[in-house]
């Protein structure tokens, strides 16, 4: 790229240090190379200003930020270990109890009521009924018609 002999003067003018700024401005308006040089310098300065721009944290924000950190550091740590350990132990105990019940028992136990599956009589005209009392005693009742009494 062509470099004009006025480049140094343009740079000084750009920095506001040239003693004859009107003369340099007049040259830049007629010199393509210096105009491009000036444009690049302006772009560079704009970019640097963007990078150099930093955010400032206001005093109240900083205090709240520090306070938040302090709270998290100093507050007692919430622990779920005890709860989970207890739940795990309970579940394990239940599983063991169910397994033991299944292995060591043979069915639901002898709590079932007496069941009469069938009942009949060979005596002609006789009927056989069954009932259970409130005490759980099952009764089979042979009922013989009076006409058949003599055979008994």
């Amino acid at each position: 790229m062509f470099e004009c002999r006025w480049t140094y003067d343009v740079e000084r003018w750009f920095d506001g240090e040239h003693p004859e700024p009107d003369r340099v401005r007049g040259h830049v308006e007629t010199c393509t190379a210096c105009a491009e040089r000036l444009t690049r310098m302006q772009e560079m300065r704009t970019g640097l200003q963007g990078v150099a721009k930093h955010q400032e944290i206001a005093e109240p924000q900083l205090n709240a930020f520090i306070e938040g950190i302090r709270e998290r550091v100093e507050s007692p740590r919430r622990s779920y270990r005890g709860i989970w350990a207890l739940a795990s132990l309970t579940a394990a105990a239940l599983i063991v109890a169910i397994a033991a019940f299944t292995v060591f028992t043979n069915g639901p136990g002898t709590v079932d009521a007496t069941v009469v599956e069938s009942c009949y009589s060979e005596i002609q005209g006789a009927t056989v009924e069954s009932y259970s009392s409130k005490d759980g005693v099952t009764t089979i009742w042979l009922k013989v018609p009076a006409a058949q009494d003599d055979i008994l």
Partner: protein
Amino acid sequence: MSLTHIIVIAGAMLAQTQSGQPPPVSISVVAVHATTEGGAKQFGPGLEGVRSALADLEFDRYRKLGAATLSAPFNKESSLDLGSGYSLCVTPLSRERNGQVRISLMVQMASKAADGRPVNAVSTTIMIGSGKQFKLRGLKMDQGELVVVMSLDR
């Protein structure tokens, strides 16, 4: 291992399986003569264990005729003479998973018919648990009834 060894071992296993039959069922039987004579209910001696089983009957006199404990093997008929021409036949059929026992019961009576063949007055199949009481009633006997109270021993 020779074929002979295999046969001997199989035979021994089969014998062990057959000897593994469930033990006989123990059944208590109490024969009671129940009559109506008027007055308050009276239970004769030896009926303390079956009073609750007799409580719902309409009779007022109860006399023990006899009591026995049957040791009845499975799938084999065991019989007991109840008196007055009645006999009780008991055949345990199976033991269920819940501990109950399926039992075939039959009360036979001597027939007055010419052929003399006994009559099955009552035939029933029940499933009963240990300690449970069970009774048969309605069998005519001397102006009253023969009541048979049974229970499966624990």
